[in-house]
């Protein structure tokens, strides 16, 4: 179990982590989410004792990382920044780590096999691709068969097979009763991997809850409606207490090119009710599709107020989500 209590970290004037508290329970995968610069990597470095906190504390199984007797046997970490010497072979990198903890060299070869680096084990790590480097990072995290895992964007640079491998690995480790904290920017990936989510923005906690609950916190179901008379339908929907906004593909109000009718995104009314309203007013509908809420929707909504590096042309939350809907 990881306990973060009132943790703060300042870099000069910059507050990277701001009175952050959450716990990561064993036996499940906890996703650690937040926009760029939210403080995820910093929080992980603080938990691992690499950075010193400006305030508060973080413990692993009730002990500070620096007090762990055999740290690599207790905690495995994959950091965001590279931590391998380019001139050293993968095997020697793992070997020196193993030696510090009295882990036998046979375990090093086992791990190299497991992550699929056996053939390049004695090659210089400087020649590794992004994904190979990531696999070496995973191998060093799992080297001591630790109870607790902290993985900072582990699928970064992995091919689809590698992504699937990491997903199954994390689920398997959690099923073995291990504590798994994993940060990622891939919302679809997190939605299917993580059981629990900790979302932060600007160093502060936004929400810590089960993944379904976080998704449900988004504005919930939306309905996609295509009609040649968007204006009249919108009026009807609004009088019923719903909300209809032209979809972002740019043809909300006007006749779409190619004879396609414009699209409205409706919230606050269920699809059957919209259909009834349209029928009662004799409005023709070309499409009426309930859309499931996604983690990406919920994430964008939750963090919209705490973007560290917003985009100049701010896009409305919920754009380009159609593709992600299942």
């Amino acid at each position: 179990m990881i306990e973060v209590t009132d943790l703060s970290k300042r870099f000069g004037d910059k507050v990277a982590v701001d009175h952050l508290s959450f716990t990561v329970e064993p036996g499940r995968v906890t996703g650690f989410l937040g926009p760029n610069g939210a403080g995820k990597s910093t929080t992980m470095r603080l938990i691992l004792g690499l950075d010193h906190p400006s305030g508060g504390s973080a413990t692993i199984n009730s002990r500070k990382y620096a007090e762990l007797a055999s740290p690599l046997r207790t905690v495995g970490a994959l950091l965001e920044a590279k931590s391998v010497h380019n001139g050293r072979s993968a095997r020697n990198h793992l070997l020196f780590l193993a030696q510090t903890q009295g882990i036998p060299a046979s375990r090093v070869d086992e791990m190299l096999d497991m992550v699929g680096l056996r053939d390049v084990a004695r090659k210089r790590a400087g020649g590794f691709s992004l994904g190979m480097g990531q696999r070496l990072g995973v191998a060093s995290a799992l080297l001591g068969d630790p109870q607790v895992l902290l993985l900072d964007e582990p699928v970064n640079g992995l091919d689809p097979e590698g992504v699937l491998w990491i997903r199954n690995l994390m689920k398997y480790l959690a099923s073995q009763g291990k504590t798994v904290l994993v940060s990622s920017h891939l919302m679809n990936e997190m939605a299917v991997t993580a059981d629990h989510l900790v979302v932060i923005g600007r160093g502060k906690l936004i929400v810590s809850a089960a993944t379904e609950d976080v998704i449900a916190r988004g504005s919930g179901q939306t309905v996609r409606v295509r009609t040649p008379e968007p204006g009249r339908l919108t009026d009807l929907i609004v009088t019923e207490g719903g909300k209809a906004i032209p979809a972002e593909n740019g043809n909300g109000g006007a006749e779409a090119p190619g004879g396609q009718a414009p699209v409205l995104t409706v919230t606050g009314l269920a699809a059957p009710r919209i259909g009834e309203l349209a029928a009662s007013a004799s409005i023709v509908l070309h499409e009426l599709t309930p859309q499931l809420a996604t983690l990406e929707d919920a994430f964008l909504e939750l963090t919209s107020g705490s973007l560290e590096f917003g985009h100049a042309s701010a896009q409305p939350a919920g754009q380009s989500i159609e593709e992600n809907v299942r």
Partner: protein
Amino acid sequence: MSITAASGQLDSAAAQASQPGGAAGFGRLMAAEWTKLRSVRSTVWTLLLFVIITIGLTALLSWLTVSNWTGPRAAPRDARVAADPIGFIFGAGIGLGQLTICVLGVLLITTEYSTGVIRASLLAVPKRYPMLAAKIAVFGLLMLVLSELVAFGSFFVGSAILHSRVVVSLSGPGVLRATLGAGFYLTVLGILALAVGAIVRHTAAGISIVIGIVLVLPILAGLLPSNWGAHINAYLPQQAGSLVYAVHQSSGQLLTAWEGFGVFCIWAVLLLAVATYLLNRRDA
């Protein structure tokens, strides 16, 4: 990919190698530091270069001196070599060879920062200072062996080549001490360089500072007014440290050979203390 093969197999190993208690734990850290040191090709090459440059240069200069002995212009130089053959033998070879040690000592720790390995190292040894201590122990032992090899190698090669003109033997007054001392000096110099590297954490800055300490500081101190300048000069790291491999005492010398070496060691220890303090205090 077999995930199941991954876990559960370490349990027996974990049971055997329980807590890393005191000496056993430090032995493990030394083994790890040895793996780090030998597994980077540039380190191994630099060490080889050190041996070759130092002994090679001693041989070359001795041979040039002997083969031009009593040439028309060489008389004063010959007299100097004859008066202080040890100073001549160790002067050139170690003078240049020590620079490779300065570079190596700095690189050993600054490359951990430039490559990011320091994070892996500190995750494995979160108390931090034992990692530095093990690194110094391993590097120090290796340096001691190589430096004594180089010192005695230089002595035997140099004295054999000079033999037809000047005779020096290990049994001469102060000669054995100077030869052993040359090895000690190089060893401590390596540790001092490592300490500076650990303090500044950047390769170029670290090397510049160490080379500055060894080559530039004595020159600058020489520009100070003679009266108290001489006192400062005598206690500078390189000035004090080099006394231990000299046989001839200069007239105004303030420290004996071993006193000088002691001062040199104190410098190294002070820098190590600063390095340790900063290592524990700073974010990695």
